[in-house]
């Protein structure tokens, strides 16, 4: 029973986060002072998530192996050049497999 309550409370709280601004900002013009930070939410959130995936495991510093780090670095460079997110897979996985074979 406790687990059900935990799932329900986490789900309800998460939905409150999701819906809060959709309700509060309805029909309003967002002030410039608000828009400026919003413009960098994406880059900050994506890289925080990415760094957490690559360099930590369960709350501890634990960097990924060289093959994965190299694959991600190559994926970054390729997408910067082509602008196509799918190319991160096309370029990244072969790099990982090659290094995995060699090391």
């Amino acid at each position: 029973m406790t687990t059900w309550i935990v799932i329900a409370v986490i789900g309800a709280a998460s939905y409150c986060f999701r819906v809060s601004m959709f309700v509060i900002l309805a029909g309003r013009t967002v002030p410039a002072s608000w828009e400026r930070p919003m413009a960098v939410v994406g880059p900050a959130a994506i890289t925080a998530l990415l760094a957490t995936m690559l360099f930590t495991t369960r709350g501890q510093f634990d960097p990924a192996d060289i093959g994965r780090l190299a694959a991600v670095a190559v994926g970054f460079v390729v997408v910067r050049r082509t602008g196509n997110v799918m190319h991160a897979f096309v370029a990244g996985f072969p790099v990982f497999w090659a290094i995995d074979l060699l090391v």
Partner: protein
Amino acid sequence: MSHVDDPPTISSVPGGAHGLRQAARDGVVDVTPMVIGVVPFALAIGTAIGASTLSTAQGLVSAPTILAGSAQLTMVEMTTAGVAPLVIVVSAIIINARLLLYSASLAPWFANRPRWMRFALAVPVVDQLYFTAAPRFDRGDLDETGRTAYFFGAAAWLVGAWVAAQAVAIFVGATVPEWVGLDLAAPLALVGLVAKSVDTTPARVAAVVAAIIAVVAVGLPLNTAMLLAIIIGIAAGTWMRAITRRTPAEQEVAK
């Protein structure tokens, strides 16, 4: 993203039902790299649920209810480890607090939608959907109806794949050879988005600062590192944006 430069405007309105179908299809296509990225994560969570103390029903319900991988995995692992329910709830809520920022960033694009629709639009707000939709909305080629179709199209594909992959892993398990490196799909999808999003100096500053803080602060209690990293990254990016937007006269005064 450039809300300040390009405020939400109705530019080229998609033409009727055909235009809306096209917008929804665009959402499906654009979010596909994210789907490829989240499926291995969903399989891993489903496998973890299979090995946990959660029942099959609890595992299946938790996927669409929490709808955020990090918080869900934290809940599964902490529950299995016998951690106090209050600590589990607080940890998961802190991890998901970043959803408030996504909500604040997305809400202006749907400000004039009916109330019931705004409640529905908020349901699938997750990292990958936000990272996909916000840059597309910034292009300004969709009106509010088009943005709604785009958002729901992308959300249906992303959430459907997420829940289905977890269900498959819970019921039949997921055994992919380790050499494939399937866990690499999620970071590759994210790095692709990073590469596309860091096209201005404030964005680059926000990204670098957030990444550094996320790693340096990893030992903080209750999984607060990522939220702290995002907030400090946003502050750094905003500061940089304020500096670079000053006129030469203002810069002289600042000196």
